[in-house]
């Protein structure tokens, strides 16, 4: 009886595993943080899991600084562990600068912060292939209100998961002969 059930299960599961699921890159609008539409393999769930287990997907910086604070190091160490446990997930390390920087310097500073985070993650054991860096400069503030207090909060680096896990099972193999 059990063997029959297993056979049925295998015949149902076989087509799914035989065809690797095609993945469409999610559109960038709206910006990460809002639910992503489209055929996505639970990327928001993974992002939420990363955020929960690491404490945050974001680390913050002082004005002009790209130095990782003790709090940032704790968060990034946890992020590194999560990424090591999910080797098939790719992450975009997105650097931002606050709105009171000039535009060009903000772009350079965002890249410098993202590079600092990426280097720390790699030093913590994450594969470099998993990590890309990008700078948003001051183009995506977290707060619409333009005051010193809110604008300076925009100095941050966000770890944004951008590719879903590939199927964990290996590429289709001939089914083992069932006795």
């Amino acid at each position, binding site marked *: 009886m059990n063997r029959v059930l297993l056979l049925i299960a295998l015949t149902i599961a076989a087509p799914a595993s035989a065809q690797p699921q095609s993945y469409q890159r999610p559109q960038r609008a709206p910006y990460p943080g809002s639910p992503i539409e489209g055929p996505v393999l639970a990327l928001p769930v993974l992002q939420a899991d990363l955020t929960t287990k690491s404490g945050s997907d974001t680390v913050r910086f002082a004005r002009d600084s790209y130095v990782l604070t003790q709090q940032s190091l704790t968060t990034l160490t946890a992020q590194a562990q999560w990424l090591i446990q999910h080797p098939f997930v790719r992450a975009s390390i997105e650097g931002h600068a606050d709105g009171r920087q*000039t535009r060009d310097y903000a772009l350079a500073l965002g890249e410098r912060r*993202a590079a600092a985070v990426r280097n720390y993650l790699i030093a913590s054991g994450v594969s470099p292939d998993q990590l890309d860096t990008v700078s948003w400069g001051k*183009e995506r503030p977290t707060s619409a209100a333009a005051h010193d207090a809110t604008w300076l909060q925009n100095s941050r680096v966000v770890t944004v998961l951008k590719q879903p896990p590939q199927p964990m099972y290996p590429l289709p193999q001939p089914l083992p002969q069932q006795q």
Partner: protein
Amino acid sequence: MRFWNSKSLLLGAAAMLLPTATWAQAGQPQLVVAVPSLPTPKNVDTNGGQTGVIGIQIAQMIASDLRSSGSIVTIDPDKLRRYTPTEAGSPLYRNWENANAGALVQGYVQGRDDGRITVACYLYDLKTRREMTRAGFAVGAEDWRRAAHRCADTFHKAITGLPGHFDSRILYVAETGSRTSPVKRLAIVNWDGSNHNYLTQGEGTVLSPRLSPDGQRVAYVSFAGGMPHVRVMDLDGSNDRALIAGPPAISFAPAFSPDGRKIAISIAREGNADIYVVPSTGGFPQRLTTTPGIDTAPSYSPDGRSIAFESDRGGRQQIYVMNADGSGQRRVTFSAGSHGSPAWSPKGDLIAFSLWNGGMLNIGIVAPDGSGEKTVTNGWQDERASWAPDGEFIVFQRTQQGSGLAWPYTVSLSGGEPKRLAIPQPGSDPDWSGVSQ
């Protein structure tokens, strides 16, 4: 999208008969220019109004343009006698002796068979009784403003020795949408707010547009594909392509060389931004700076031999100058605060910059040797200076505290309050072009 057809130039600007810049010297009295209404040989209806009315409007606009220059005062049409079209080329000097003016503008507006109008304008020196310069155009009647601006530019050059900015354009980024998710479009507008056009339609985030010296191409930063990179396109939107060949890189801060052949940019890799130069037709970048700090915001000197840029190699951002091949790097600003976004003036005598000091961001100017530094605006967040072709005005981006809305403003170096550019929505990253061809 050519705004001016060179074939419509009827009369070339005559050789200047007087030494230039005689009235423009600092401390010298201003030149008084009488601007009576332009007469018309025959008052006809056009799609820009009656030619007689256009003649009055053109004179008023020439007077208004010239008045905005610090070295010229005007006597307006309604205070002056009228004259006949035949006088335009040979003024009756004795009739203007009591006008208390140093120079006189004359000209005429004539309807043409093809529906366009001919606008001719002359500038006379009332003391020496000689012609200083002249210009003439055939334009669509609805484009009389451009003819007036071109006349004012010609007169400004004859009086001060420098081209005016009255017919120049400002390229900028139109900003709509929310602060946290803005829609950004490239747009171009005449400096007086007329002739507004969008160049892109907000598909992706665009930044930092720069018009080529010939006014035909735009270099800008695009986030298309998820990574900021410099692109170049024609003014009509065609031939849009990435500037740099090779593997993708974070590139930004484009600046054309004065001959339009090269574009200086900044490329950020591994936490280090450096300045590179690329052929403006595209190609592989050649590196000019190598310090571990952030080197960005290049701006060519008008002779193309030097590049001003900002660097935080000494700790805070400061303005530096180097030769166009990267040699001879030296620091220019040493005062308190962070200095960024240098813009070399068209006269070559000044570098404008953004100064972060005391919690404020403002526009300042300094000589290339580091002397005479001072601020010229007083806002919460003023940045991104760009010079008018005459080197007398600066356009910059002013952000309002609270709303975070940014608008381009123009300010005269001779003083006065900044004026908001007359555009339909907020905007950022203004770039004041040279006089259009």
